[in-house]
């Protein structure tokens, strides 16, 4: 009868595609970068031999770098919060509506994803520029005299990234909300709970897994985004990803760039850990 049982190797077989992907695309670059990040770097000469912790030390001791790390995390949290606040009602509506337009409305949410990221970002540049749509309109209306600075700063990145990552939040939340049996909400109403209370005490807590995975997804996508910050932030408004890019590709300082990349990974892992813990507490409340 033992032969009928699945072999112990079957699990490995099922895991192998993702294992292959992780080994090649994730662990190999990490294994390459880890030793590089502790090598000294001499501009004009190259990557030296030996061991140094200076790249990490500078990251945590220099006010300039700390500001950029802090701003990156703040940006990630703000975009996550905004997509959650804007996305939840949309996702709730799409998950619960009986409308025959539902599929079209869902498609509308997905539609921005079909457009190239660079094109979408250029769209925002045309809208937010000093002589862009928003400023031209406000000036034509006489509300402002000088253009409002909407680009190359926190505002510009916040607007652009929130728009770009909103579909991810909506789709994740939709799945989670669809999985909550409607009967539970009905039961709460039958037992005397108001519409709002039923939403607050039943629907939201049950959708916490969706909120957590959506938030993690959006947070990670935001703080690792490169193209949008480069175009909307420019050289004047740096975040960690653009700083890493500059170290690698403009200053050729691979060791410092690697150290920053590990710092970014650390930030991501720490945030995911914190979010998961917070969610567990919230869940058992």
């Amino acid at each position: 009868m033992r032969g009928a049982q699945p072999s112990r190797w079957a699990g490995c077989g099922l895991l192998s595609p993702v294992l292959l992907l992780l080994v090649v695309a994730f662990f190999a670059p990490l294994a390459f970068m880890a030793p590089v990040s502790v090598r000294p770097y001499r501009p004009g000469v190259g990557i030296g031999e030996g061991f140094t912790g200076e790249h990490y030390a500078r990251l945590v001791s220099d006010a300039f770098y700390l500001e950029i790390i802090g701003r990156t995390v703040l940006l990630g949290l703000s975009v996550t919060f905004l997509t959650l606040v804007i996305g939840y009602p949309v996702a709730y509506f799409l998950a619960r509506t009986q409308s025959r337009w539902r599929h079209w409305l869902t498609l509308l949410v997905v539609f921005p994803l079909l457009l190239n990221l660079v094109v979408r970002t250029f769209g925002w540049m045309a809208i937010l520029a000093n002589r862009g749509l928003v400023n031209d309109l406000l000036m034509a209306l006489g509300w402002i005299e000088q253009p409002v600075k909407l680009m190359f700063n926190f505002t510009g990145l916040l607007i652009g990234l929130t728009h770009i990552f909103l579909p991810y939040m909506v789709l994740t939340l939709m799945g989670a909300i669809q999985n909550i049996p409607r009967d539970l909400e009905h039961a709460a109403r039958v037992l005397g709970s108001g519409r709002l209370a039923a939403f607050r005490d039943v629907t939201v807590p049950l959708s916490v897994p969706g909120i957590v995975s959506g938030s993690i997804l959006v947070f990670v996508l935001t703080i690792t985004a490169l193209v949008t910050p480069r175009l909307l932030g420019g050289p004047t408004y740096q975040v960690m990803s653009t700083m890493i890019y500059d170290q690698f590709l403009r200053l050729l300082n691979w060791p410092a760039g690697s150290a920053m990349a590990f710092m970014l990974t650390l930030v991501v892992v720490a945030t995911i850990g914190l979010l998961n813990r917070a969610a567990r507490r919230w869940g058992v409340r």
Partner: protein
Amino acid sequence: MRCTGFIAGFAAAASVLAAPARSQELVVAIFGGSFADNAKICHVAPFEKATGAKVVFVFGSSPENIGRLRATKGRPEIDVAYMDRQIVIQAKAEGLLDELSTANVKNIKDLYPIAIDEDRRWVAFMFSGTAIAYNPQKVKTPPTSWADLWAPEYKGKIAISDVSYSAGMHFLIAASRLNGGSVENIDPGFEAIKRLRPGIVTFYTQADQVVTLIERGDIIVAPWYVDRVGAAAAKGIPVALAFPKEGTIGITPTASVPLGSKRKELAEKYIDVLLSPEGQKCYAERQYAGPTNKLVELPEAIAKMVPYKENIDTIFFPDAGYIAKTLPTWADRWAREIVR
């Protein structure tokens, strides 16, 4: 679960798959855009005709190209690498480049001395520089000096390059020299650009951003590359070139052969075409590249637009080795003091 064997197996399989399929082609890492388009016409076509070999282009900026060489040190996948001077100096210091043989690169003997590395690890195949680009429809009296850029009429109408690109570091150097400083004593440059800062519309990071900025009317003046001005003006963009009287700051794109190239001789023949009078004349006419070969004779219309002959003496070539060492410090200061 005993997955270790699987992982090891996959790692082995992946490394086999990653090994590149090689054929008898010459792989050239070159800058993109019109640069490559014109290289196809001026250099690749005659080279392929003469040797029967096939040239494959890989596109990248200088830092990307040195990155490729670093990552594949000693067993490069490219045979000819285009890099700007301050980058190629670093590639040489890192031991990534092979020595060029004068037997194969015959035209080396006709180059200006400044275009040849003392150890023949690279050669410069063109002169360009950072000068002043302006919109002739909006600017009545063309600027004649770097100092003119601080004039009130350009306030809010000027863009400058970020410091890590040639045009940016060159403008910093020009600003420093203008105010009693030098490449080594760069403080006056930073002070001057700080004064200019409130009137700067944007810091561009791609050369062709200047085209859009001028077309949209966002700016009317910018420190920009000599060759780009020529190419943009030829396309009908309202842009003209002013050579500041203190001298343009020189740029010398170079070509080199990575150490370990399996087709070194072929690569050297390609570089020989780059340096040939015909190849350089063609590139001057199409790409506004100043020839580094003394024998090149240019028609007058082109000669005015590019660094050429006695003009070359007025170009200021900063010490690329010093810049390579110092640029990270400048970039750091720039990020903190200028753009922050």
